[in-house]
């Protein structure tokens, strides 16, 4: 038989994380997100162009002029986005030529700041992706992130006199634990009572928000202020930074990459991961195979919560060194979109998180240099997400063939499922 021949070659191929990702790329399931991003960027530019005032003031006298102004505005904002997120090429060249430390740091700061911005996205994206794989829709990443931040900051400032190699892991661990607890509760409710995790994680979010407000105005408030803000953490609990100011790039980025590899290993190489994916893909078959669905569900939600908690911990221990209510710009909610774009695969999540980090970081520059509101970035993210959620649109635009199987389908059970 011909297929036997194919198989004998197969064992030589060891599956690596990236290998699987490339394989999916070949199957076209990754092509859609990439095309969705390109289309989103294009439409974003179009929106910038048509919202430029000059286009309308010149339209009646010279439509051509108006169009060129619109295109000009779009190009200017995208070049600002590029400079703000990756770096200004000229400035980088100058800095390299001069070799002066401060100039170099300023030149490379945009790029490294984008990486720093993507850290919470990676963690929170992994959290949601892990949930998806187990068939759970964890909308509570934001609340879990808050709980993680609270626990981290407390361990960070309350424990003193510890060496960094003990204090930092402890603070990170506390963050993971706080998030895990916030995932464990809805996980248990889901597994034992069938209470839908979407509802329960949303409720847990509110509890987390209000709890953090209470704590920051009460037990965790910095003694010398009336603002709801915690004391600074000890330097021993800080995630070390690699460069001098203004570069905030810190160890958390590599912790996040390690976490991504950990999630990949867990999902695709371990017994627990197999059970988790089976429960997510077909709970009936999981039951038939004798898997403990209650345990797997609770564990999956707890692990998901722990990852989201680490996102919060990283913001506190690596960037802010303190906790204020507005420390998260909705990472937990953005991460749902991000996990979808990344197809719930750790490699995809990291790439999508980088995209979000770069877009968010560049958006600021775009606003300053091109006078385009930051909201354009939100619109673009929304467009990208809409295209990913409705792949038929992208397939129609680019005349792609539908995949034979719905492998890239969102693996989440519906209401009462």
């Amino acid at each position, binding site marked *: 038989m011909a*297929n036997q021949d*194919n198989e004998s070659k197969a*064992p030589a191929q060891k599956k690596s994380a990236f290998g699987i990702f490339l394989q999916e790329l070949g199957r076209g399931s990754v092509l859609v997100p990439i095309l969705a991003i390109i289309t989103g960027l294009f439409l974003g530019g179009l929106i910038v162009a048509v919202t430029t005032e000059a286009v309308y003031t010149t339209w009646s006298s010279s439509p051509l002029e108006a169009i060129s102004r619109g295109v000009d505005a779009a190009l200017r904002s995208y070049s600002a986005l590029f400079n703000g997120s990756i770096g200004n090429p000229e400035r980088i060249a100058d800095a390299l030529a001069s070799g002066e430390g401060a100039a170099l740091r300023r030149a490379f700061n945009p790029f490294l700041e984008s990486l720093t911005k993507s850290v919470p996205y990676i963690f929170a994206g992994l959290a949601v992706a892990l949930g998806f794989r187990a068939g759970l829709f964890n909308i509570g990443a934001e609340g879990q992130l808050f709980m993680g931040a609270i626990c981290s900051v407390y361990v960070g400032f309350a424990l003193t006199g510890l060496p960094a190699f003990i204090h930092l892991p402890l603070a990170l661990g506390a963050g993971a634990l706080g998030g895990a607890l916030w995932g464990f509760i809805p996980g248990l409710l889901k597994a034992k009572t069938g209470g839908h995790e979407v509802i329960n994680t949303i409720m847990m979010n509110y509890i987390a928000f209000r709890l953090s407000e209470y704590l920051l105005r009460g037990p965790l408030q910095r003694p010398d202020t009336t603002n709801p803000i915690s004391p600074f953490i000890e330097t021993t609990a800080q995630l070390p930074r690699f460069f001098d100011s203004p570069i905030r790039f810190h160890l958390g980025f590599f912790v996040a990459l390690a976490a991504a590899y950990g999630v990949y290993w867990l999902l695709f*190489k371990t017994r627990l991961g*197999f059970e988790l994916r089976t429960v997510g893909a077909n709970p009936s*078959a999981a039951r038939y*195979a*004798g898997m403990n669905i209650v345990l797997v569900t609770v564990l999956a939600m707890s692990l998901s919560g722990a990852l989201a908690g680490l996102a919060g911990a990283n913001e506190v221990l690596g960037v802010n060194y303190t906790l204020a209510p507005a420390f998260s710009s909705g990472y937990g909610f953005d991460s749902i979109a991000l996990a979808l774009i990344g197809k719930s695969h750790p490699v995809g999540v990291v790439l999508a998180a980088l995209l979000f980090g770069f877009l968010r970081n560049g958006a600021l520059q775009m606003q300053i240099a091109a006078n385009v509101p930051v909201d354009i970035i939100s619109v673009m993210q929304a467009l990208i997400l809409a295209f990913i959620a409705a792949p038929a649109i992208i397939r129609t635009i680019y005349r792609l063939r539908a995949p*034979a*199987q719905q492998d890239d389908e969102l693996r989440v059970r519906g209401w009462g499922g």
Partner: protein
Amino acid sequence: MPPVLELRNITKRFPGVLANDHIDLTLNRGEIHALLGENGAGKTTLMNILYGLYQPDEGEIFINGQKAEIHSPTDAINLGVGMVHQHFMLIPVFTVTENVMLGSESLQLGGVLDRKAAAERIREISEAYGLAVNPDDHIRDLPVGGQQRVEIIKLLYREADILILDEPTAVLTPQEADELFRIMHSLTERGKSIIFITHKLREVLDIADRITVIRRGKVVGSTTPKQANQSKLAAMMVGREVDLSVHKRAAKLGAAVLQVQDLKVADDRGQLAVDGVSFAVQAGEVLGIAGVQGNGQTELVEALTGLRSTHAGSIRLLDEDITRADPRRITELGSAHIPEDRQRDGLVLNFPVADNLVLNTYYQAPFSKGAVLQQNTISEVARERVSKFDIRTPGVETHASSLSGGNQQKVIVARELSRPVKLVVASQPTRGLDVGSIEYIHGRLIESRDSGVGVLLVSSELDEIMQLSDRIAVIYRGKIVDVLPAKGASKEKIGLLMAGVVQKGAKASPKVAAKKKAVTKKTAKKVAKKKAATKTTRPTKRRKDS
């Protein structure tokens, strides 16, 4: 006179598949034309084209010699084409009249439904064709056969002349099937024409005027029952000679592997679906459980495999009480389970074949070391099993979803029979499979039996039960009405038992204890009496996963 229906050159392509390849078909007035073919041969696609659900890529349809454009079921109905689907499209809480009116309501002045007129017409139609349907009955109170007659009335009410019946006997007892055949004849006598879709050879020979066999989207031949016989039709269907008979040696019986005592199991709605069942499966035998779908078989199997909690009674596997054991424990004790719904329970469709082959042993050595899966071992073992069990797949990394039904089932069989097992619980193991796969799976089950494994076979295909079993237990409304040796058991007798009719003096199996026998007969008699009183011959419960 032109034929009532003529399909010319119908071609329909789906991505990667040629579902219908230049099919020609003619249907004459007053004819029963059987469309025979395996699952996936293209019968249903062809009929969906005729019914307006699909558009053909090529080809033309002529009705009464006129070229017809059928773009929707509404067009089809207007042209006199009606279809009874395999799964009925009825609303249980509505009456017959309301169901029949649905979609073609007759209205009084002011938009009020004219139920009276509709009921009157239904009564007329029912009498004219001998359908015995009362327009005021609620659908939920009707047996499956009665529901099917309502579906037929729906077509006649809309004045359909061409009736398509899609696998109409799949849900019927043999007696109900005979009743359906009588009705089909009375329809054709009055000038209606019928296309009868099936994969059951015996029925085709019994009732059809003409037979068209389809294989892989092509018409491979037309014949009449006079010129054909079962093996000839099977060969046409499959494309090679098929041995339909199962060869097996005399059973070498061993000790009981499975003992079930007074088992009671509730269904999803909390009603007793299995109501005091006792039986034993011995090593080296096949015990067949015959019964019409929905008489408690599903719940019984789920209880035996740990997927459903029991209400009362006990189950023993070898020397262990497994009444409250979980599926993993039961599997580890040496019970194999081929589940009724292979895609829901037996496989994870978007997992590779290799993963599906270790779905319930992945945690054991050599597939796992500690917490880590041994992927190389899993792939290696998978490749062995793929070749040993003749699973046709491009590779072990191929997702189970892209395999055919027969090969999907082989994955399950390979997984379950590769373990050292003492008991095989096979539920509807060949439902919807092609003849080749059926042959293969039957062979494997008999092989297990011959190697000293006890096999519990649950099937609603009476032929399958009769071919494979050493003893046959008939289940009706959650009770085993009789257990009889397969040798010498007649189809008619089992058919009657399946309908809950127990003849006076019927002998229960000597294997059943005397006391049990008395109980069984008593309940069966009660059931029979009840049946006479209510005239319902069948429970109305139907497949929940349809």
